[in-house]
């Protein structure tokens, strides 16, 4: 069972947190990979593949803390995945993909910046701290890429602005979950809820430059409800099951094969 931490020195709590963060990275990486061959222009094709590869690398490093990477990625059921629901949302149009990336990258940068130094107070978090430190420059680039495109589309043509606006609003309800506590991380040290204000400020600044507004009660009726899902508890939205079936199909068809 994936619950068993196999890596030396990783206690159950650290493994639990590493799994949740690893799931976020793996699922978003897989979604980005679905763009292969479909991106608007060749250069963006390369950029999206780059983001996907970065995230896949992060996922692998985090899974290595927990146990067998392949077993974790390919042999768990939907209910065992602990990723936030934001990352499993379908790509939609290009604006949708960019909005999802903006929300996630800004958040992950804040979280990893804290985690990168977490081992000073809690030596047991050293494996996660190492992954976070390595991932920070990558995430800074992801954020920059997403912010650049948000501005281009939001402050582009009438059509691109309309689509960017729509994507920002549609994915808003999945952002609340980013600020829920992560099981296995000491609450006194890492408090995701404390990132919300910073996150709002940073996302707001990008949207302002893109001449878009943060969603309000009028555009997104449940804006204040922050309708966070329960991805961390293994409860996912409908598209996730299909994504997983596609991702795991080959591995499940040939159990035990080596690649």
């Amino acid at each position, binding site marked *: 069972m994936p619950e068993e931490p196999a890596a030396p020195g990783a206690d159950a709590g650290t493994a639990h947190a590493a799994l949740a963060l690893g799931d976020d990275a793996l699922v978003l990486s897989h979604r980005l990979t679905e763009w292969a061959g479909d991106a608007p*222009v*060749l*250069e963006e094709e*390369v*950029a999206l593949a*780059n983001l996907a590869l970065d995230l896949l690398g992060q996922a692998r490093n985090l899974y290595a803390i927990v146990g067998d990477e392949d077993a974790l990625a390919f042999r768990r059921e939907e209910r065992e995945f602990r990723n936030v629901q934001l990352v499993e949302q379908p790509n939609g149009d290009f604006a949708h993909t960019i909005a999802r990336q903006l929300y996630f990258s800004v958040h992950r940068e804040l979280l990893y910046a804290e985690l990168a130094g977490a081992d000073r107070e809690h030596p047991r978090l050293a494996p996660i701290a190492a992954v976070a430190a390595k991932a920070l420059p990558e995430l800074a*680039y992801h954020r*920059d*890429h997403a912010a*650049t495109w948000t*501005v*281009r589309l939001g*402050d*582009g*043509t009438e059509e691109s602005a309309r689509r960017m606006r729509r994507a920002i609003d549609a994915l808003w309800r999945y952002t609340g979950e980013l600020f829920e506590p992560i099981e296995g991380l000491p609450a006194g040290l890492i408090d995701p809820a404390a990132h919300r204000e910073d996150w709002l400020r940073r996302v707001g600044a990008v949207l302002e*430059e893109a001449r878009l507004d943060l969603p309000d009660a009028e555009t997104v009726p449940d804006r204040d409800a922050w309708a966070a899902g329960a991805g961390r508890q293994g409860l996912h939205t409908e598209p996730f099951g299909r994504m997983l079936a596609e991702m795991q199909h080959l591995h499940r068809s040939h159990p035990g094969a080596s690649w």
Partner: protein
Amino acid sequence: MSDTPTEAAAPTAARTPAGAPWPLWEVFVRPRRGLSHTHAGSLHAPDAEMALRNARDLYTRRGEGVSIWVVPAAAVTASSPDEKDPFFAPSADKPYRHPTFYEIPEGVRHL
């Protein structure tokens, strides 16, 4: 785009009108231990900012400590192949034009 100072200083960063094909950019890269920028290739991008980002992905694989220059291909003037001979006339028969009679002092690097 907002008018950031860097943009104001770089007229080539003007935005491509919607629907227009993206212009061609030439990319020059200086490797981390390199001394000078070398032409790495070219790419299409709507403006300089995007060209830089794309060049990073395509030509540097994000190695730390490199420097990238992007130049609109239209801004490059090349020597014409027809004038090759007079333009690059060899000076091999004029030894006084070659600085081969000097000892290189200790401690001078990159010469």
